[in-house]
C-alpha cells in the first residue's frame, strides 16, 4: 500500500514524456511505439482518507520491449498493471495501446480489448483448475469465438513451442509451477495481444524455472512481443530491456 500523501506534484509534461521516449534503452528509434501511458493516476478513498495508489505515471513502450517494473510492495506496480490492463478504472490520465485510448473505451467493449490487445500472466498462474492445459489456453479464444478447430490448433502449437507438447491434457494440479506458468504464458499469447502484462510471474517458482520463464520472455520479445513484467527479482529485471522503478505510486527511475 503506498503512503498516504496529498497530491502536490505537478502533472507530467509532454516534454517529460518525450524525454522518456528518448531515454528508452531499447535503442531502436525506428521501432513503433505500441503503448503510451500519460499522466495516469489512481486515487481511491479509505474512509475519509484519499489514497494515491498511482500518480501521474508516464511511460512510453515500444513494440517488442521487455520492460521490468520494480518497486517495493504496495508501491503501485500492480495498480499500474491493472490500469493498463483495464481491470481497474483510472482516476485520471490516458493509456493508449496500439492506437486505442483504453481509458475512453466504453465499459461494454473492455472485455474485447482485454481479449484482443492484452495478455495477462499472474503470479499464482490463475489457471482454471478443472480444465486441461490445452483447454486453459483455448479459453480466451473461445470468448473471441475462434472456431474450435482453429483454437485447438493454435493452443497446441503455443504449448508445443513452450515445451509442453506432452502436457496438453494435464490439469493444472498435475503440472509443476514452471509448467503452469508456461501454460499461463501460452494463454496470454493465444489471441496475439499487443502487450503482455505479467504480474510477478516468477514469484512462486525456483531460480531454474525463473530463468526458463525469463528466457521465454526474451525470446518472445525478440520476436516482437511487448511484455511488461512487474517483479521484485533483480535477476529478472537484469534480463529486461528497460527497468521502471516505482515508489509510493510515483515512477522514480525510468
Amino acid at each position, binding site marked *: 500500500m503506498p503512503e498516504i500523501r496529498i497530491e502536490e506534484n505537478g502533472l507530467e509534461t509532454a516534454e517529460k514524456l518525450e524525454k522518456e521516449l528518448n531515454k528508452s534503452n531499447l535503442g531502436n528509434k525506428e521501432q513503433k511505439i505500441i503503448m503510451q501511458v500519460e499522466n495516469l493516476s489512481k486515487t481511491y478513498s479509505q474512509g475519509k482518507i484519499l489514497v494515491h495508489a498511482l500518480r501521474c505515471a508516464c511511460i512510453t513502450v515500444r513494440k517488442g520491449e521487455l520492460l521490468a517494473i520494480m518497486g517495493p510492495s504496495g508501491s503501485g506496480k500492480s495498480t499500474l498493471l491493472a490500469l493498463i490492463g483495464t481491470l481497474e478504472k483510472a482516476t485520471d490520465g490516458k493509456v493508449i495501446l496500439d492506437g486505442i485510448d483504453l481509458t475512453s473505451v466504453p465499459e461494454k467493449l473492455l472485455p474485447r480489448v482485454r*481479449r484482443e490487445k492484452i495478455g495477462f500472466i499472474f503470479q499464482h498462474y*490463475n489457471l482454471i483448475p478443472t480444465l486441461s492445459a490445452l483447454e486453459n489456453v483455448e479459453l480466451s479464444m473461445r470468448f473471441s469465438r475462434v472456431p474450435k478447430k482453429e483454437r485447438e490448433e493454435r493452443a497446441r502449437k503455443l504449448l508445443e513451442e513452450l515445451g509442453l507438447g506432452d502436457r496438453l491434457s494435464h490439469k493444472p494440479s498435475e503440472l509443476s509451477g514452471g509448467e503452469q506458468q508456461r501454460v499461463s504464458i501460452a494463454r496470454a499469447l493465444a489471441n496475439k495481444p499487443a502487450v503482455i502484462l505479467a504480474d510477478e510471474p516468477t514469484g512462486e517458482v525456483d531460480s531454474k524455472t525463473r530463468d526458463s520463464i525469463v528466457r521465454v520472455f526474451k525470446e518472445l520479445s525478440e520476436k516482437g512481443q511487448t511484455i511488461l513484467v512487474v517483479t521484485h527479482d533483480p535477476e529478472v529485471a537484469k534480463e529486461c530491456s528497460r527497468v521502471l522503478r516505482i515508489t509510493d505510486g510515483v515512477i522514480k527511475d525510468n
Partner: protein
Amino acid sequence: MFDLIIRNIMNRKVRSALTVCGIALGIFAVIVMGAMSENFHQTFERSMSVTSDKIRVFAESGVFGGGLTDEKVSDVLRVAGVKDAYGLLMTTFDEDKMGMTGKQILGVPPEKSSVALYPVELKAGRFLNPGDSYNVVVGSNIKREYQLEIGSKFEIHDKYFTVVGILDYTGSIFDNAVIIPLETAQDLYDVGNSVSYIFAVPDERVDAEVLSKRIELSVKGTSTLSPDELEVQARQSFMIFSVITISSGILAAIIGGLCVMNTMLMSVTERTREFGILKAIGAETRDILLLTLGEASCMGFLGGILGILVGSVAVYIMNAWLANTRIVLFLITPRLLVIAMLFALLIGALSGLYPAYRASKMSPMEALKHA
C-alpha cells in the same frame, strides 16, 4: 460453452446431484398433483359433454332435500318449450362406504334410458326397455370390477338384477354408474315416487337459459341449472380443486428452485476468483451469464426429466394399485408433461438469475483478489 457448463456441473457431482434431486422432487409433486387434477379435468369435461343439452330441475331445498316427485315431472313437461322431461333417482351404490368409491345407482325411466345417457354408447347389450324391472345397465368400471357380462346376475340392495347392457368407457361419471328402472329404484330404496332431479330437454329452437328461468317460474318449489350455469358452477368447483392440487405441487417445485439458487450462490462465491480470471482474459458479461444461467438451467432440465420419470412411474404404480379398487385417480397428459418440463426449466433459470447477475457484475480486479 455447453461443454464448460456440463463440466462445471460434473465437477461438483454430489452437490449437483443433490440439487437435481431437489428439483426432481418438486417436479415429482407437480406431476402427481397435476395428474390428479388432469384426471378430474378429463372426467369433468366428458361429464359436461355427456349432459350438456339438458336442464336440471331440482327441488328448491336441493338435490337431497326431497320434495321432487313424479308429479313435478308432469308440471315441467307442461312448460312451453320443454320437449321432454323425466325424473331420475340418484343414490350411492355402496352406502357402507359413504359413496367414497363414486359408484352411483341411477334410477331412470326405462324408455328414457338411451336419451338420458346420450351420447354414451353401449359396448354390449341394450339400454333399458319399457317393462324392464330387475334388469340393469352398468358402466365400464362396474363391469370390470364385478366381472359382469350380459346375462350376469348382479346384487343391488339385496335384490338380484340381470345385466342387459354394458356402457362404453367414457372417462366420465357414467363409468361408475349402475342404471336401473326408476320405479324399481324407488321401491328398492323406499322413496315413494320421489326423484332426485328432473332432466328437461329444450325444444331445438328454444334458448336453454330462457327456458330454465321459465321452468323455475312455472313450477313452484323448483330451482334449475341450465347447461351454461351448470358448466360455470362445475368449472368453479374444478378450478378450486385444481388450484389446491397444483399449488401444492408448485410449492414443492419452488422449494426445489430455492435449492438451485442456494447451490448456485455457493458455486458463484466459491468461483469468484475463477470469474475474475475469465473476465481478465476477456469473457463478456454475457459469457459469464451464459455459464452460470446455463448451469442452473441444465440442473433444472435434469431435475425436470428425473422428476417427470419418477412421477410418471409413481403415477403408474398408484393407478395400478388403485385398479384393484377400480378407481382411476391420476392421468398423465402430454400437456402436463410439457408444463412440468417448462416449469422445471423456468425454476432452474429463475433460480440462476440472481447468482448469474452477481457473477457477471463482479469487478475483475476484486474477483482476482478473492482467496
